[in-house]
C-alpha cells in the first residue's frame, strides 16, 4: 500500500488481489449446474455460478451467474447475470454490472465502492511471532553495542 495515496481518493480494489491461483494466475471457482451451496462463500478471484446458491457470495474479481442465487452478492469488479440466470439479492455491491435480457434480477444495487465493507472473513490469522529475546552474550572485543 502506497503511502503517497491522496487522502481524498477512496481505496479502489486492486486487481492483483485476485491473483492467488496456481502460478500466479487468477483464481477461478466454478459451481456447475448440479452444484449447490448453502451458506457463505468468499473467493479471492472469479466465481461462476451455474448451479444454485442460497447465501452470500463475495469475490474479489468477477462473478458470473447463469444459475440461481438467493442472497447478497458482492463483486469487487464485475457482476454478470446471464439471460438464464436469476439473482434475488438483498444487497448487491458491485463495481460493474451487466444484466442480460431475460435474466431475473432484484435487490438493492450499490455500485462504485465495493470494497468498503467488513474485513474479509477468511483472512488468515496473523501468526504470533516470537518476541525477540535479547540475549546478551558478552563479547569482550565488540562491546560497542552494535548488533549484527
Amino acid at each position, binding site marked *: 500500500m502506497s503511502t503517497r495515496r491522496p487522502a481524498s481518493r477512496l481505496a479502489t480494489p486492486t486487481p492483483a488481489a485476485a491473483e492467488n491461483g496456481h502460478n500466479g494466475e487468477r483464481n477461478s471457482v466454478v459451481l456447475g449446474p448440479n452444484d449447490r451451496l448453502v451458506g457463505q462463500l468468499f473467493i479471492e478471484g472469479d466465481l461462476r455460478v451455474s448451479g444454485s446458491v442460497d447465501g452470500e457470495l463475495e469475490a474479489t474479481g468477477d462473478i458470473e451467474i447463469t444459475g440461481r442465487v438467493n442472497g447478497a452478492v458482492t463483486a469487487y469488479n*464485475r457482476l454478470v447475470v446471464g439471460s438464464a440466470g436469476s439473482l434475488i439479492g438483498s444487497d448487491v455491491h458491485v463495481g*460493474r*454490472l*451487466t*444484466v*442480460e*435480457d*431475460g*435474466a*431475473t*434480477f*432484484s*435487490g*438493492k*444495487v*450499490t*455500485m*462504485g465502492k465495493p470494497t468498503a465493507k467488513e474485513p474479509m472473513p477468511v483472512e488468515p490469522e496473523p501468526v504470533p511471532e516470537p518476541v525477540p529475546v535479547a540475549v546478551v552474550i558478552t563479547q569482550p572485543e565488540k562491546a560497542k553495542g552494535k548488533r549484527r
Partner: protein
Amino acid sequence: MDVQEAVAEGTASVDNGEVKRDGKKQFSMGPGDILEGRLIYDGSVHADGRLEGEVRVTGNIDVASGATVKALLEGSNVTLKGAVEGPVTARDKLTLGRNARVSGDIQVRRLQIDDGATLNGNVRMGDFEHQASGQ
C-alpha cells in the same frame, strides 16, 4: 411545484415537440430543451436536454445520452442512456445503455443492463399491481 402551471408548460412543449412516427405520437425533446413539471402523454417520449418532474406515458420513454433527468419515469419500454435520478417504472422492459447513470428505485418486468452503466437503487422485477399507473 404548482401542478397546474407545470402541466401547462408541458402541454405547450407537446405542441412544439410532437412528431408522428408510424402513426404513433411521439413527443421529442432536443438537447437544448427543458421540461419542468408533469407530463401525462398518450404516446412515446424521446427526452434530451433537461427534464424535471414526472413523465407517465402509454408508449415508450427514451432518454438520450446527453440528457439530465430528475423525474419519475413510467412507460412501457424505457431506454436510458443519460443521467437519471428518480424512480423508473417499465411496464415491459428497461434497458440501461452503457453510458447510463441511474440513481433511483426501479420496477420492471424485464431488465437489461449494458456493461458500463451505473445503477444505484432498488430493483424490483415482476408483479405489477396498479400502483404504478395510479395517482
